[in-house]
């Protein structure tokens, strides 16, 4: 079981490495969106500090969305997906592997980049650490939930926009607890509760989302 998950992850990572421009484009999207906000609302440090958690988290949601349409589309086009669906391993397991690969490619770079961008917003060190931690805990849920949307819109016209319409409302809890964790640190309350709830969301998202995703993929393949 572990072997097949690892095989899927390895394969998806190799494929992603061949299209590094996609990853880099999503990262720059993240950087640009975050950098636009100070230009929009003004450079007052107090205000920026208050906006930072929300801005960084919303930008992270949007950046994750960018790479979601590719999650299954390429495999669908060249017929790999059909073979995976016929494989002896449960499809949900393969989806699980793909979700992890997606997170490694789309989520993890955001985690590493966010503290740097947080400096632009005058965040203190402890807030920066919590920001990175909250993204580390929360972004896997984004990949997991997003996979459901990606599978549902597979091969559907207007897929990209539709995908964001379906997935963004479902991201709201992650956004609330993720940005809330940083917020709580800023106001000196401690982020423990937020981070625990975020962890629960991620566990739920990553371990339960592959099942509806697999079901949606089978429907798309019919």
């Amino acid at each position, binding site marked *: 079981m572990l072997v097949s998950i690892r095989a899927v992850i390895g394969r998806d990572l190799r494929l992603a490495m061949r299209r590094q421009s996609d990853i880099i484009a999503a990262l720059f999207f993240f950087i640009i969106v975050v950098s636009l906000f100070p230009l929009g609302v003004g450079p007052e440090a107090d205000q920026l500090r208050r906006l930072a958690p929300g801005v960084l988290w919303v930008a992270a949601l949007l950046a994750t969305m960018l790479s979601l349409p590719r999650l299954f589309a390429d495999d669908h086009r060249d017929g790999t997906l059909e073979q995976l669906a016929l494989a002896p391993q449960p499809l949900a397991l393969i989806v699980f592997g793909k979700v992890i690969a997606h997170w490694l490619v789309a989520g993890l770079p955001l985690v590493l980049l966010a503290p740097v961008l947080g400096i632009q917003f005058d965040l203190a060190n402890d807030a920066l650490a919590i920001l990175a931690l909250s993204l580390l805990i929360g972004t896997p849920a984004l990949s997991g939930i997003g996979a*459901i949307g990606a599978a*549902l*819109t597979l091969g*559907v*016209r*207007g*897929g990209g926009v*539709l995908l964001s*319409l*379906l997935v*963004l*409302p*479902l991201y*709201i*809890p992650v956004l*609330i*607890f993720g940005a*809330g964790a940083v*917020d*709580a640190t800023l106001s000196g309350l401690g982020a423990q509760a937020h981070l625990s*709830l975020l962890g629960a*969301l991620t566990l739920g998202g990553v371990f339960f989302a592959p099942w*509806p995703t697999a*079901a*949606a993929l089978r*429907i*798309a393949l*019919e």
Partner: protein
Amino acid sequence: MSERVINWFKYASPQTFYPLAGKLIPWFWALAAIFGLAGLTIGFLLAPTDEQQGEGYRIIFLHVPASWMSMFIYLVMAFWAGTGLAFNTRLSGMMASALAPTGALFAFLSLWTGALWGKPMWGTWWVWDARLTSELILLFLYIGFIALQAAIDDPRRADKAGAILALVGVVNVPIIYFSVKWWNTLHQGASVSLTKAPSMAAMMLWGMILCALGCWMYSIAVALMRVRTIMLERERHTDWVRSVLGEKE
């Protein structure tokens, strides 16, 4: 017992459900009119003034039923979606797609009447209260469902994809509600709590219940109308549609 099961599956086929729905629709319209008029009469003509909120509170006779309906319809929709996935019946998917626009309508009405209620009561059209925010997200979920179904040409696939989305949504609605509530208590954005109902006289309660029943009947009637159209559209290649339209050779 077995007789009931057979009956159930008999009416689960579009061919038999179509004329049945046609016969039921006028009855549901009549009930909707009776309940609605009775509820509005009590709410707008007979119920006393609320001592805290003045006459403006009468909006709740519209607002609360609309909010209830928007939530119930989502549950019913998800129920049909689930049955459709589990038993692969054609009717279930059609019922789910027939309910979605009506649910979205009530979610919108709930927001609209809520805003018009909020303005005189708290001096603002919108507060980021947990309930209002959840209702807004519910509207988004409806719109996602409708958009997904509209984007898929094959109706069978549209049904199934919509069903998965509706079920995922149903699991998520409580999580969203809880998280929004949590967020709300931390930020204390809304200084007024919607949860504190005005001291409700028995007459007000009856007015609200009757209005809600009227909305129920309305929803059933409209959903049946819509499902009949969907049936004709989807089953247009079958003999029963031809004979219904009087085109039997």
